[in-house]
């Protein structure tokens, strides 16, 4: 009785894992490990003099974008590292909003990671050396959820706060404009 139950439970669990796996983050369990690095000063899309090609995206970007565990840990860090004190739950305050469609320093995950690591001149602190590179990438992955960028199956359906912001599963995906029309 109990073994039959276990077997059926196992089968069910396997089925769930198999189906859920269809649309989950990519896992690179057999690939070579990548060095723990955050791009230094990766800037928003900008003029490339002489018609040169934009630099290739950082390979770590793919590992963290749409990665549910990374986003969940990033969400925890977002509160504990006091990001929430300046950026609120995406609406901004001391710092700019993170749920809208404007990115002063670029809205790609590697650009956000660079902003967190290096800081920015109008008051964004530099976290390199205070957080590990892995933590910085996880934070960047979470920040992108505030404007609905990741796929909906990688985000949480409930908010950590009393805030009445919509759950991340319902956050509309904003376009990403590398622009700054805020009055600074």
């Amino acid at each position, binding site marked *: 009785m109990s073994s039959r139950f276990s077997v059926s439970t196992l089968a069910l669990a396997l089925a769930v894992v198999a189906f859920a796996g269809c649309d989950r983050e990519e896992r690179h369990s057999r690939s070579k490990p990548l060095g723990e690095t955050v791009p230094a000063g990766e800037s928003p899309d900008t003029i490339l003099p002489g018609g040169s090609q934009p630099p290739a995206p950082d390979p770590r970007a793919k590992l963290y974008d749409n990665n549910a565990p990374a986003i969940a840990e990033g969400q925890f860090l977002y509160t504990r590292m006091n990001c929430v004190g300046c950026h609120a*739950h995406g609406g901004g305050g001391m710092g700019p*909003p993170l749920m809208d469609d404007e990115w002063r320093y670029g809205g790609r995950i590697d650009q956000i990671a660079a902003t967190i690591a290096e800081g920015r001149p109008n008051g*964004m602190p530099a976290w390199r050396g205070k957080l590990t590179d892995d933590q910085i990438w996880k934070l960047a992955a979470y920040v992108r959820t505030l404007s609905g960028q990741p796929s909906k199956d990688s985000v949480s359906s409930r908010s950590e706060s009393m805030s009445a912001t919509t759950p991340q599963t319902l956050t509309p995906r904003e376009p990403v404009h590398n622009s700054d029309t805020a009055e600074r």
Partner: protein
Amino acid sequence: MRRVNTALLNVIAVVACVGLQACNKNQPGSSSEPVPSGQLPNGPHALPDRAASPPDDGNWVMPGKDYGSTRFSGLNQITPANVGKLVPQFTFSTATTHGYEAPPLVVNGTMYLITPYPNDLYALDLTKPGAPQKWVFKPKPAAASQGVACCGTVNRGAVYDAGKIIFNTLDGQTIAVDANSGQQVWRTQLGNIQKGETLTMAPLVANGKVLVGNSGGEMGVRGWLAALDEGSGKLVWKAYHTGPDKDVLIGSRFKPFYPTDRGKDLGVKTWPPEIWKLGGGPMWGWISYDPASQAIYYGTGNPGPWNADQRPGDNKWTTGVFARDVSSGEALWFYQTTPHDIYDHDDINESILATIPWGNGRRPVLLRPGRNGFFYVMDRRTGQVLSATPYGYVNGYRGVDLKTGRIAVNPDKEPKPGRVSRDICPAAPGLKDWNPSAFSPVTGLVYIPHNNLCMDMAVQPANYIAGTPFVGADVKMYGGPGGYRGAVTAWDPIARKAVWEVHEDLPTWSPALATAGGLVFYGTLDGWFKALDARTGKLLWQFKTGSGIIGQPISYRGPDGRQYIAVVAGVGGWAGGIVENKLDPRDPTGALGFTNAVKDLPGKTTAGGMLYVFALQR
């Protein structure tokens, strides 16, 4: 009969709005008809202090107008009868679009403007047509300071004394500039942005000392007030607002009125171990000075973090009033308005120096419209509270016991971990925030520009990391009972009631100006600059400026002998940050919860930074 009807309607409105919880009527740009609620005082009334408030010489040399912080102009050319003919004379763009809270200063034919970050100081020549620029002084503060300014990169004003203009920069410097040449005289670094300290207040110069306090109550700073030598900029004394008595400059002259403020090192003992070092209690508001007793009076800011669960105890010497000797900084008395503050109710609001009839004589008092919603009348020699009366809707407290001086918190509203406290009134910015009142000796009334906001608050553990916010709370604000978010209340400090109030749709974040002509001036968050009849509250004149007004209006006598009214329009600060910084209205907790209360503001005004100067049409 009409009074009864109005009262009845108000009751119905209050009940209806409490029921609906968020009752923000959107009447575009309009204020209500004044609601009369009392009689003008007809006996002896409150008067400004003679020594602190000398007769008007036509200049405006400090934000409070005088040491008594009356914000009263003795000029009387502009009256209720002719104010309708008030027209713009000239304008000036400050080249900034941050929230503009400072007043223009006027000294013998020159106007001085101190901008928000980057804190540029302009001198305009009032003797020439169009008031051309004489010079500009650019202190170039660190851009990073913008990231540790909790509630806008504002500056609340410069001050003129003895040939110098003295002001603070956001990145923690106090600077003296020669008023004629625009050349720097001295510059002193006082605040450290790496610890989250900024300087946003206007200095006060008294008895050869430049008094400056720090901002950063949301960043885990340790609050202080410093005195610099006016000639050299060198530090004379510095009094902390937490910690051991020697740091607080508490010694043998310290004689608080209430027993709860007596004892050794209460700035340490009323905190969990070591927490006083991160305890807040900054000083970013207003100081008054009594030249007769050579005492200064000011209040201290909120304790940190907002999550009060992390700091059991009275948290001295935060959220209270200090009297100090100006020369030595020694504390004379202290009264803690809100021990163990749980709602972010800083006590940095203005302390108006006045005398009130008392027995056969007059008693020297402080008039203090508090952030916690109570109007305090205090004996300024002793620190005794003579009365404490709500001047608007308050449910976060039950009242002030005049025997013990202690305020009673409403336990139903106290934020505790694991629950959301709802409908706390007033909200974190208080019934009134920094924007000062005006006090008219003509009517004996205090004109209080204020909010009518309530909030939901949830606390969670705050994590101290130097240079980042130390708050530990999610807040969501909304309009209070009555369906309006701001008001101007004409308060009789002796009868302890309102004579009239005018309701504003949006929170009122602008200071007030009262004039001998019988007018009260203030601005609205959507850019209307208004003149009310000081006796009745009737709206007599209004002008739509280019941006929301949070600046301090002033009045001066021009080189041509005419009376002028000046104000800078430039929305921002805590209330207007949603416009200035393009915050996203979809997150109700944005701007520490203010976003939710002003979601409609981006549709009603845009950022700016323009001086407007008015006079009667010739």
